[in-house]
């Protein structure tokens, strides 16, 4: 009775706020992804995260049937919040209203705001002894997607050859994909993807198939075709998203999902073959095998490098296609001993030709040879308000990589996390992705400290400070180097229709200085300070506005400082009588050099993470439309144009455009069959 009364009262109090949040579904979590994107150099990592969250957003979880695995796929939830949601459902039974989320311990409005797009209030779980396969297949969801993007300017790559030796793109200009997704009650999923990059011929495109079965008897996961793997903190095996520095400063532990499907258009980070996870009592055993072709440069039957992008639109790119066969086999074991979770991973991989990159000082310790293996042990332990996590891994040469963290949930208003990592300069793990300043988990030591603090109602202060050191040389840094990365953000959200933040970030690192008089490179410090103010407000009638002001200052030893400035304004409107959503944005930018590049978060068609960067002087505007023809068929359309006032040529090489403006068109169709 009390619970009903409280729920009713909450309904009265928070209905405005919740309806506001429901109206503005995308903003809060895409902001979080944008912020991570700004902090990381691994673009694919961010695209994976964005696609993963977009997929959940499209097929949200039933809050009354949600399980731990599903909650762990939402990286903004802390371990304690996940346990509290589960505990609430266990103690109080299914929720009667989504407003009950406010009653869950330690779940603040900011987190609820991020959670709401990913959950819905559905039927409570029905205890079934046998899986009703026929019913599952009858109610299966089938969705197809078709996307088409094109640049509307003429690029050099598509122009006629001037000389017969000139390189040109082989295919047509548009980017396009077709995706089919079949999902029978989250038990059986399969699908395929066909993608053609800009300038690629259709026959040179990316074609992918996957099949995934979940929770059938002792088989917890069975994946065939293309799949992804992530275990522990990702030091030995992770082809998925790795957690990074973000505004959620105290959430830095990577959540490894184990075996999952590969449904994205990522042409690099996946495995191909079969993987299975078996559950026996509280043990989970995974076994996986993979064999796939990858693009590589080959000289005299020796691999000099593995291609890191996935474009096959020129003759030279095609020569690298299928250059190497990569084999992989491995196993993982996980077990829960009450509050302690332990895991162990062993992975062996081999190339059909020896990998021997050209020897430079910076890659002196990089992997060379035909095969390698990694083993690791990982742990998680919860005790009262403490959560400890970590992993230590080893490669065949005996080099170690170790990451250890401690999160303390001091109170519902204060959380802090300390994370230490030490990756040997000779640690070699091809399939590793974890918390790191560099894009790879090697040659790095660091200490990270993050806090989230709500000192008063409507105020939140979050920040992190990360100090790191690279004991060996890096590409473009001819000496051991070090640096730091600090962020602090103050959020103020006094009304349901008004929220704002001010953010300050500073990162200092070292690199070879480009001094024309220097005979040898001199390694020196450089730093970039970024200031951002953002204000979101709504005037009712389903209209919302966002204003952003960006300013940054770049300093480098032996050089004068440079700065960059940008101002952006966007407007969003959704209609009640028409199934139409409309977004428009304008951005003015003025930067003194490329070092002052401005990042802009911009709404795009579904599943497309858009985080363009700008330098120079100019403006950009974009218009985005979403139209639901009926409950099954939806369309997205976007037009974006960038105009530079100080350039007559944009980009270079085959991407060169003559003129001062660049425009792009994006189209996506989704059909829920």
């Amino acid at each position, binding site marked *: 009775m009390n619970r009903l009364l409280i729920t009713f009262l909450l309904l009265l109090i928070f209905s405005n706020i919740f309806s506001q949040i429901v109206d503005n579904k995308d903003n809060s979590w895409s902001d979080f992804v944008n912020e991570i994107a700004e902090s990381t150099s691994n673009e694919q990592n961010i695209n994976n995260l964005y696609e993963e969250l977009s997929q959940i957003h499209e097929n949200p979880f039933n809050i009354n049937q949600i399980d731990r695995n599903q909650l762990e796929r939402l990286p903004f939830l802390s371990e304690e919040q996940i346990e509290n949601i589960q505990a609430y459902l266990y103690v109080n039974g299914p929720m009667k209203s989504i407003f009950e989320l406010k009653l869950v311990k330690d779940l603040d409005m900011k987190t609820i705001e991020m959670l709401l797009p990913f959950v819905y209030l559905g039927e409570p779980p029905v205890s079934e002894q046998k899986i009703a396969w026929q019913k599952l297949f009858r109610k299966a969801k089938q969705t197809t997607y078709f996307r088409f993007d094109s640049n509307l300017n003429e690029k050099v790559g598509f122009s006629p050859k001037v000389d017969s030796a000139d390189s040109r793109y082989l295919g047509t200009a548009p980017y396009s994909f077709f995706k089919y997704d079949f999902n029978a009650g989250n038990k059986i999923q399969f699908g395929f993807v066909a993608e053609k990059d800009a300038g690629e011929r259709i026959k040179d495109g990316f074609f992918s198939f996957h099949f995934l079965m979940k929770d059938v008897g002792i088989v917890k996961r069975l994946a065939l075709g293309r799949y992804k793997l992530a275990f522990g903190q990702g030091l030995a095996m992770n082809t998925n998203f790795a957690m990074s520095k973000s505004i959620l400063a105290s959430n830095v532990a990577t959540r490894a999902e184990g075996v999952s499907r590969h449904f994205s258009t990522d042409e690099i980070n996946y495995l191909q073959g079969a993987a299975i996870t078996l559950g026996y009592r509280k043990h989970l055993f995974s076994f996986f095998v993979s064999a796939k072709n990858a693009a590589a440069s080959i000289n005299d039957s020796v691999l000099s490098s593995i291609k890191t992008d996935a474009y096959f639109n020129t003759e030279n790119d095609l020569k690298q296609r299928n250059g190497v066969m990569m084999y992989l086999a491995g196993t993982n074991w996980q077990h829960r001993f009450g509050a302690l979770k332990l895991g162990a991973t062993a992975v062996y991989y081999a190339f059909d030709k020896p990998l021997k990159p050209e020897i430079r000082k910076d890659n002196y310790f990089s992997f060379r040879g035909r095969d390698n293996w990694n083993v690791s042990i990982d742990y998680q332990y919860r005790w009262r308000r403490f959560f400890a996590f970590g992993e230590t891994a080893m490669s065949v040469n005996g080099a170690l990589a170790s990451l250890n963290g401690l999160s*303390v949930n*001091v109170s519902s208003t204060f959380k802090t996390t300390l994370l230490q990592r030490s990756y040997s300069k000779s640690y070699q793990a091809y399939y590793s992705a974890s918390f790191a300043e560099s894009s790879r988990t090697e040659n790095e030591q660091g*200490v990270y*400290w993050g806090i989230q603090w709500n000192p008063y109602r409507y105020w939140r202060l979050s920040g992190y*400070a990360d100090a790191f050191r690279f004991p060996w040389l890096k590409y473009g840094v001819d000496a051991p180097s070090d640096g730091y990365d*600090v962020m602090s953000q103050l959020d103020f959200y006094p009304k349901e229709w008004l929220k704002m933040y001010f953010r300050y970030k500073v990162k200092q690192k070292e690199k070879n200085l480009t001094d024309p008089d220097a005979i040898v490179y001199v390694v020196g410090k450089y730093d970039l300070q970024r200031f951002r103010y953002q204000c979101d407000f709504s005037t009712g009638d389903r209209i919302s506005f966002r204003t952003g002001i960006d300013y940054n200052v770049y300093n480098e030893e032996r050089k004068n400082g440079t700065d960059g400035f940008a101002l952006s304004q966007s407007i969003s409107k959704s209609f009640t009588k028409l199934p139409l959503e409309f977004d428009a944005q304008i951005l003015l930018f003025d930067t003194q050099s490329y070092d002052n590049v401005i990042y802009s978060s911009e709404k795009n068609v579904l599943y497309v993470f858009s985080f363009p960067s700008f330098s120079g002087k100019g403006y950009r505007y974009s218009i985005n439309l979403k139209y639901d023809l009926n409950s099954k068929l939806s369309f997205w359309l976007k037009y974006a144009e960038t105009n530079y006032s100080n350039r007559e040529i944009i980009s270079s090489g085959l991407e060169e455009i003559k003129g001062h403006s660049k425009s792009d068109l994006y189209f996506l169709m989704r059909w829920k069959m």
Partner: protein
Amino acid sequence: MKNTIKNIKLFTVIFGLIFPTFGVGSENNHISDARSSALGDASVSLSSPENPSSNSLHRESSLAIHYANPFGVKELSTVSAQLFYANRMLDLGVSLSRFGYEKYNETTISGYFSRKLSSRLALGVRINYLSLMMSEYEDRKSVLSGDIGFLAEVLPKLTIGMSVDHLLRTKYSTARGDFEMPLILHLGANYRQGKDLMLVAEIEKDNLNDPLLKIGCEYLSLEEVALRIGLLTNPYRPTFGIGYSTGHFVFDVASIYHLILGFNTQFSMKYKF
């Protein structure tokens, strides 16, 4: 060979880090207790030896010893001891601190005089006598200086502290010229949230170098056990520590991590009476 490398390392550390600061007046032997160090050395608003008035706000008598061993090099160690005695007339204290080894060392003797002016305000002064042994070929140098500081509980949860080190100081002469101690200003605050959490911040600026920002956080996970974390800038250094109190005794361990040089580990033991 190993010894040669060790000697080179020691030489580099001492001349690279210590002498540049020494040349303009040394701060090597300022007493920093392990609790303060674990909180990013943001100690001016706390009951710490940094603030001359710190003894008086909470009227606590104590005897403490501190030991700091930077980067595992014993020649860079500092040993210090301090005694505070709170009484109705004037709170008194004395401390003795020694940094270095036989060929280079600094010894400081300080006297503390402080008083609680109201229920929420304490004021104190400190007189320091510094004796410097800089080289075998020079005489021992002596310097006198005077510091002042206050602590104010502006809100029940918020305390601010300020101290000015070497407000009055004498010069000393070396073969390289005359030098004096730098004037250093510490301005800080601590905020208590609930019974178990304290956040602390401080800005330090002297008349020669860039300002230092210091931030720390202390969490009493159990009533007797305190976990601490912090950072200080210029150069950027994270700090950590743990404290344990039992009866009249308090034990603290701390480490300041320097990215290149490693850990500066400190230990403190205090007896309260």
